[in-house]
């Protein structure tokens, strides 16, 4: 339905941009001043082509998607942000489920600096454009999650927008975590530095430093990679944000020691639930007071040990004929994240679907990883279930060590014994890894999360 009363993202950007403020959006190939930003006339076919239609944006890089999405907000009826790693074979089904009528690709938008095309800007009906995000499934088809301008901007009024921040993110803006940062930067008074497709992490970090990034977000796995990159000191952010995976105490402490001047916060968010809350006290988990928070702050419930969230930032539903329902009878999203009360805090234990069953006893890989990661020589770990004819599974772990200092060789068998000893002290016997494997890398998906194979 056309709707004339909401501001578009582009109008919000313009309202906060004055010629004296040097605001920009850039990747390594392009940099646009936001005061000059006119994106509608970058669409080769003109905006009329997209008016009132459901458009899937599928470009190679993030930059083109950012411009296209800003051009179409308020013009299209629905925007579907297709991540770059969705294979061609899945597109027809996703278009059908998302009711997409056409695809906007790199061939449809001009991202070169300077304005190349003249189009007639006609008065078009204004739409309260819907935004569709893809979930980061480990296998099969991603789910399509329906958001609105209201749900996406809901979490942005939390006061985390100081004067002229320069935001960066290790997320892709076609994922919920990245889109939040893009919108936060642009509709606040900030600038945005995007990574280019296939840009190496040390190049991106160096560039973030050169661009003067002040605020930056990523998953704990992203941040482990930063700390392992050897160039972490090239940037000097004043605010670091973690989300998307549980932030263990080890990564919070490591970041604090690498960036002692930075404020470090971890946010609880998912594509479905939106941003539920953020924690800024440097401790893992969240204080018990959060679940009792009253509206307009999100409502949080713990049902059977699993976190459920209801807020104005959450999505409205999944799209598609066979899509499951998004919320329970009381309007809460079941996040699938298991929490446990320890003292006056709730600590994240793991994901419901990732549980390894050892002889009938449940093990959350994340809980074991949190213990392994406390070892000072460990940069990153991944716990998995090794098949066993006796107990069904046993706990095994891949371990990446921190970069060698001064090239001194370390003996992994010593480290292994220390890790096992620490696990025996902290964990029940069935949770202690029987196998620790030193690996050079643990795969991280484009969503920024550790790649896991659930049985």
């Amino acid at each position, binding site marked *: 339905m056309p709707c004339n009363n909401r501001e578009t993202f582009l109008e919000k950007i313009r309202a906060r941009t004055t010629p004296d403020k040097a605001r920009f959006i850039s990747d390594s190939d392009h940099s646009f001043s936001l005061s000059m930003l006119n994106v509608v006339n970058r669409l080769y076919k003109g905006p009329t082509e997209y008016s009132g239609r459901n458009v899937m944006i599928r470009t190679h890089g993030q930059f083109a998607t950012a411009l296209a999405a800003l051009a179409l907000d308020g013009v299209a009826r629905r925007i579907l942000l297709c991540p770059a790693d969705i294979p061609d074979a899945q597109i027809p089904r996703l278009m059908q489920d998302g009711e997409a009528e056409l695809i906007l690709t790199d061939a449809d938008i001009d991202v070169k600096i300077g304005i190349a095309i003249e189009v007639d800007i006609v008065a078009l009906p204004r739409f309260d454009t819907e935004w569709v995000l893809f979930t980061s499934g480990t296998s099969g088809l991603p789910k399509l999650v329906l958001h609105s301008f209201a749900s996406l901007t809901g979490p942005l009024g939390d006061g985390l927008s100081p004067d002229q921040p320069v935001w960066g993110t290790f997320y892709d803006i076609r994922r919920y975590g990245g889109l939040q940062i893009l919108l936060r930067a642009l509709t606040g008074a900030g600038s945005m530095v995007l990574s280019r497709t296939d840009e190496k992490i040390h190049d991106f970090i160096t560039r973030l430093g050169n661009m003067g990034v002040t605020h930056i977000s990523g998953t704990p796995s992203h941040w482990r990679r930063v700390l392992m990159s050897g160039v972490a000191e090239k940037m000097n952010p004043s605010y670091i944000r973690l989300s998307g995976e549980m932030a263990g105490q080890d990564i919070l402490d490591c970041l604090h020691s690498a960036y002692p001047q930075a404020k470090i916060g971890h946010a609880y968010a998912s594509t479905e639930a939106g941003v539920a809350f953020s924690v800024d006290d440097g401790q893992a988990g969240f204080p018990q007071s959060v679940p009792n928070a009253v509206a307009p702050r999100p409502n949080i419930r713990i049902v059977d040990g699993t976190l459920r969230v209801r807020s104005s930032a959450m999505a409205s539903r999944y799209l598609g004929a066979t899509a499951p329902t998004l919320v329970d009878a009381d309007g809460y999203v079941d996040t699938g994240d298991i929490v446990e009360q320890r003292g006056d805090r709730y600590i994240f234990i793991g994901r419901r679907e990732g549980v390894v069953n050892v002889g009938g006893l449940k093990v959350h890989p994340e809980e074991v990883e949190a213990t392994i990661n406390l070892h000072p020589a460990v940069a990153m770990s991944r716990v998995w279930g090794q*098949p066993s004819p006796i107990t069904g599974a*046993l706990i095994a772990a891949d371990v990446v060590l921190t970069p060698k200092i001064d090239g001194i060789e370390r003996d992994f068998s010593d480290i292994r014994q220390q890790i096992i000893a620490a696990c*025996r002290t902290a964990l029940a*016997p*069935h949770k202690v890894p*029987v196998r620790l494997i030193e690996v050079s890398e643990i795969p991280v998906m484009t969503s920024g999360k550790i790649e896991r194979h659930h049985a």
Partner: protein
Amino acid sequence: MAMRDTIIEMMTNIAQQQRKPLAPLQDDLNLLSSGLDSLCIAILVAELDEEFGIDPLSSTDDHNLPVTVGDFIRLYENAMQ
């Protein structure tokens, strides 16, 4: 070291690690009366697989699981041949 001695040594170490009191290991002793619980035996099987690359309990079509310590040792001795 003979397979028998390796297995006895592993059983002893695992029982120690898992803080399980171990009965004197004789061939006619029931595995489940040895003091080793199923987690200990699963660890033993995994360690033997890592050491020798064999896992007769997973690969055999014979579903007669070893009952005694002697059965268990013979299963591995046969698998090594």
